[in-house]
């Protein structure tokens, strides 16, 4: 049924259709509306049997999910930003124990300075946690990816993170088609745990493993994650068969066949990129877009196949690795070493990524290896000058805000 609905509510509805048995979460913007929606469904009895656990922290949220999943229940949680970092230890643990938990990350920047707006620093920081990571371009895709996530997670006994851009998607109202309960029931079989806490067949889960077996255990976890490269597209195909729409898979190409320059990105910025590319094409520029739906495991082969013919690839990063540069870039370079790859860091902390900026960047003949889109150089230079004069560290963000004439904390 096509409905005009907020992204978060669409996701809550999709998750509910998957019949989770334990839902737990700790509030953090911009994730809140998702779990509020689920709390309502559980409290009203619309989603049953399901336990909604109001925990005291994100660390507890992931821990409750771990316990529930190990006891054989389909478990779900959602978080963002500081919350994701706060649960980090348990996030790695869920993957190490092979528990098919599904978690939404409503992508948000990481402080300090504290900032509630969207970028992808949070999920990118946990890219090595052993979770499958899927990134939604639209709210339709966000909703559909959750249904697929449970199936992928349970097929591989590996947790899945569905990342959707905070506010841009979570708080946007747009039409989303939701399947009927029976359709989801046919698509998603009940959770059958690989190993379960059961008095009828006791097992020890989470043993201490020494050097003689640890590498092998980790290798097998890697191998299972790599299987996702087959399972993710397969599940997307099945969804297309069942629901009649294609949302999921590893990558998505847009006008790339004959493209000289390909922009590679993840998440909601793909829409703006496609519009920009259409405009540039009208001017005769041969540009295309490659969207990455699956970032972990990294679909190296699919990426190579999609960009191999291009003269250059611009990776639009919504996060970066201080001291290095682009995170996604490094994966692209490894996948396609012969291709010229540039990094453009854009949209940090919710900074708008505009079509003029993007087309300016793409029209430029030469791009430096690392660019920060729309960086205000004058502010940087002024602050660097101030630091050089004072020879001590100071509150950079507050200084910049004062220069901008904005009222900042502690400044009158």
């Amino acid at each position, binding site marked *: 049924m096509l409905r005009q609905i907020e992204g978060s509510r669409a996701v809550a509805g999709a998750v509910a259709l998957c019949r989770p048995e334990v839902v737990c979460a700790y509030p953090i913007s911009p994730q809140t509306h998702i779990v509020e929606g689920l709390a309502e469904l559980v409290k009203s009895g619309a989603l049953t049997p399901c336990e909604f656990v109001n925990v005291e922290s994100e660390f507890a949220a992931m821990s*409750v999910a771990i316990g529930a999943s190990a006891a054989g229940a389909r478990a779900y949680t959602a978080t963002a930003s500081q919350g994701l970092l706060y649960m980090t230890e348990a996030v790695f643990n869920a993957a190490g124990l092979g528990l098919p938990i599904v978690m939404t990350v409503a992508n948000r920047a990481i402080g300090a300075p504290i900032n509630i707006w969207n970028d992808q620093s949070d999920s990118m920081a946990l890219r090595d946690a052993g979770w499958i990571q899927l990134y939604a371009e639209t709210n339709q895709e966000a909703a559909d990816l959750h249904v697929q996530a449970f199936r992928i997670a349970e097929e591989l006994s590996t947790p899945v993170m569905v990342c959707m851009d905070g506010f841009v998607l979570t708080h946007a109202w747009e039409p989303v088609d939701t399947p009927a309960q029976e359709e989801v029931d046919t698509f998603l079989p009940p959770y059958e745990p690989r190993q379960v806490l059961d008095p009828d067949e006791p097992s020890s889960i989470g043993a201490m493993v020494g050097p003689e077996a640890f590498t092998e255990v980790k290798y097998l976890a890697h191998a299972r994650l790599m299987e996702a490269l087959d399972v993710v597209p397969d599940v997307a195909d099945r969804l297309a068969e069942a629901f009649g729409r294609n949302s999921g898979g590893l990558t998505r190409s847009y006008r790339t066949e004959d493209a000289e320059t390909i922009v590679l990105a993840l998440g909601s910025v793909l829409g703006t990129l496609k519009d920009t590319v259409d405009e540039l094409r009208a001017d005769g520029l041969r540009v295309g877009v490659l969207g990455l739906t699956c970032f972990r495991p990294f679909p190296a082969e699919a990426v190579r196949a999609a960009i191999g013919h291009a003269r250059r690839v611009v990776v639009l990063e919504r996060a970066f690795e201080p001291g290095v540069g682009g995170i996604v870039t490094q994966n692209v370079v490894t996948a396609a070493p012969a291709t010229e790859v540039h990094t453009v860091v854009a949209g940090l902390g919710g900074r708008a990524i505009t079509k003029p900026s993007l087309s300016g960047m793409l029209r430029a003949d030469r791009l430096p290896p690392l660019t920060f889109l729309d960086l205000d150089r004058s502010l940087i230079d002024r602050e660097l000058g101030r630091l050089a004069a004072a020879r001590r560290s100071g509150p950079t963000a507050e200084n910049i805000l004062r220069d901008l004439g904005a009222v900042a904390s502690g400044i009158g």
Partner: protein
Amino acid sequence: MAVMPIKFYQTGSFAVGGRLLGEDQRSGQSDRRRINSIDCGHRACQGCGEALGARYALDAAMRATGNRMVAVNATGCLEVFSTPYPETSWRIPWLHSLFGNAPAVATGVAAAMKAKGRDDVRVVGQGGDGGTVDIGFACLSGMFERDDDVLYICYDNEAYMNTGVQRSGATPAAARTATTPAVGPEPGAVFGQGKNLPMIAMAHEIPYVATATVADLRDLEAKVTRAMEFHGARYLHVLVPCPLGWGSASHDTIRIARLAEESGLFPVFEAEHGEVVATSKIRHRVPVEDYLRLQTRYAHLFGDEPRTGVIAGIQAQADRNIRRHKLLGEV
């Protein structure tokens, strides 16, 4: 679960759980048809109070639940010595996740059982004092506050033993640990407020809170059995001397636990819904010195120049406990 024939290698009617008693009066340990929660072959030190306490507590829980239970374990000695992969000493369904999240993981298991309609399966969470009073404290308090159906057992050996005997929030004043060495003008752990988790648990007004020691295993079993009669959050705090960390003889574990009780340093009581309902009275009161002298973690108090002031301070703590909990039987 396979039935283990009872092994009569222990001596004394207390240690073996009263095998000289009638069948109906026996403890779980001397039931011939009993199933072990923790099997032999684990790697605990000789005389480990934690291994003993955990075994009695969980065997009693199994008995109380008809073996329908799941145990969740925090990181610590108990977890490490019982599960050297590919071996395991656990004959019950058992899950270890992390150091600081055992109460929340146990909550997750309980929530799953509830959602699945398996009302018969009960959940026990457990951890050392570090995992309980320090790093896992927020998760534990959350579990109490929500009144989740979990019995949480803290095995208090008064330090981080698994990482080499460092101070925890439960380390007593003046005790030497690797991070409170016996050097300087005030050697050992400083005198502070301490973190009295049984009292903090009571303040949550959960259905059941109790303390116990491995000196009275029948009492420990009875408390586990009682705890299992309640639903909701329950807390059991068990004093488990650690020969390695306390610098005591392996054969003195039970004796030291008893002296902790009889000196007044470790009050043993039961509380329901925030109110004390029973207290174990001191039978033969002893000065704290009798307890302290058996442990090298206090050796610096008894050097060439005995630190009488420090010992008096510890005695004052014991006296305060005796007054507060009416441990001497006065009304």
